């Protein structure tokens, strides 16, 4: 499996606070990788560094064989990194289809083609029936799906999902899990930040656990959940002894 995304020794400081410290991870083509860890572990920072919201204080980010460390978010999207937002950022005054068309315009400059692509993505994500509804009228679970649809319309090689399954009902979460699987089946690599372990673990091929800004453990989900270090990070020392 060839490497699609690689971070090399990334350190990110926010006026004295070290959010990420010497983080080196890699994501292979076609993988679903879960980025997990307790609150304040630095998951969101790492995520935003990969998406281009921040430029790291040290280290570099390589995507598809190219150094993208200094590229702004728009340029990274053009190179094939799509993302969703943890706090949904729909274009509220626009309809669902128009939201997705905005994404589709990255690769389709002719309006008719962008529109066709957008309809295609809405079918794929199960939002077709809601195409003409205003984004502001969607229920929360639909808004999450719209985030994914919009990012998919940019035809990414790597899809970054920021807690898309958090806060959903079990049924909604299950639909989400299936959607992520289908996304991967189309050949798109997925890197997802998640809080809810039970949902993520069966879904991902590999899990990377962050704690206190560093990579704590990395490996198969079944191994990772049993790792004493991970249990300590999540639950504290007392529980690690029993494990």
């Amino acid at each position, binding site marked *: 499996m060839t490497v699609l995304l690689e971070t090399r020794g990334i350190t990110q400081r926010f006026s004295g606070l070290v959010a990420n410290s010497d983080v080196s991870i890699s994501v292979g083509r076609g993988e679903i990788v879960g980025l997990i860890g307790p609150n304040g572990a630095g998951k969101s920072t790492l995520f935003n560094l990969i998406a281009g919201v921040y430029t790291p204080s040290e280290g570099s980010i390589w995507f598809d064989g190219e150094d993208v460390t200094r590229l*702004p978010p728009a340029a990274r*999207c053009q190179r094939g990194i799509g993302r969703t937002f943890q706090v949904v950022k729909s*274009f509220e005054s626009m309809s669902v289809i128009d939201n997705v068309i*905005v994404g589709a*315009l990255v690769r389709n400059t002719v309006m008719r083609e*962008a529109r066709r692509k957008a309809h295609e993505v809405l079918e794929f994500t199960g939002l077709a029936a809601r195409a003409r*509804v*205003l984004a502001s009228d969607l229920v929360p679970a639909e808004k999450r799906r719209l985030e994914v649809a919009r990012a998919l319309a940019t035809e990414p090689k790597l899809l970054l999902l920021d807690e898309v399954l958090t806060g959903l009902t079990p049924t909604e979460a299950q639909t989400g899990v299936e959607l992520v699987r289908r996304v991967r089946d189309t050949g798109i690599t997925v890197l997802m930040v998640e809080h809810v372990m039970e949902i993520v673990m069966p879904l991902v091929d590999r899990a990377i656990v962050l704690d206190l800004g560093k990579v704590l453990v990395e490996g198969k989900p079944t191994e990772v959940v049993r790792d004493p270090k991970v249990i300590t990070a999540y639950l504290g020392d007392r529980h690690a002894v029993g494990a």
Partner: protein
Amino acid sequence: MDKDFTNRRRRELVTAAIFAALAALVPLFVKDVYVQNIMVLTLMYAALSQAWNILSGYCGQISLGHALYFGLGAYTTALLFMKFGVLPWFGMLAGGVISAVIAMALGYPCFRLGGHYFSIATIVIAEIALVLFQNWDWAGAALGIDIPIRHDSWVTFQFTRSKLPYFYFALVLACIAWLVTWWLEDSKWGYWWRAVKDNPSAAESLGIDVFNSKMGAAAVSAFLTAIGGSFYAQFVSYIDPESVMGFQFSLLMALPAVLGGIGTLWGPVLGAVILIPLTELTRSYIGGSGRGVDLIVYGLLIVLISLARPQGLVGLFSRSNPKKAVSR
């Protein structure tokens, strides 16, 4: 689905054509010069407000300094004609290009400002330009420019005996501004602008160059505004800084769109049709002594609208759901 959309687009175009045709017939029945004058101004402000709407309504960058581009258009045309004998048609084009370039030069620092700070900057810049023109001797300073009258003709775009040519030109101008907006609405620019307005960081994550999108909107908006200014200079044939670059023009360009529906295709037209006759009438009947009664009237209108119909008056015309007007 796609058919739905194409049909709606076509319907809009047909509706506009019908309105334009009806408007073109009005002077056959209305011979009163005073009323014709109001009609010319109404059409001009419909065009200007449509231009303002591109930057401020669609792209969300609220400008309260569009008087600058209006004035630049008027001055470029008048100066080129008076000093160099350049026909107003070329002056109009030159004014448009100059304004677009200046809009981008000003946008370069200003688009880095967020929200209200951008609006404040536009006011300040327009006021500075006003003062500069008041002190620029070559351009007539505070006394202004009397555009030399040659003879009534479309070549020099001067008509002293009839207002009709101005009326028809203003109608064409309003139609052009509407058509440009209509076309932009279903272009990548239109989508970029609305995305930038709604959520800049999401727009960026979808590959949109937010800064360039704003620059594009500013250029188109300033170009069209300057054309309106050029027209105004020909129409009144006398300009001075206060009468083409005063702050009230910035307001008069923004208010029709706000009243009719900001960021909508029909908002500026609807707003201008209601607001401009109202302004002119209040000015001539109760204005008189002190300026500003007209401003009080539509200040009141704006307050009422923002309380009852924040999406603007176009919301009244959409079936059942007021939000449909802005959705597509």
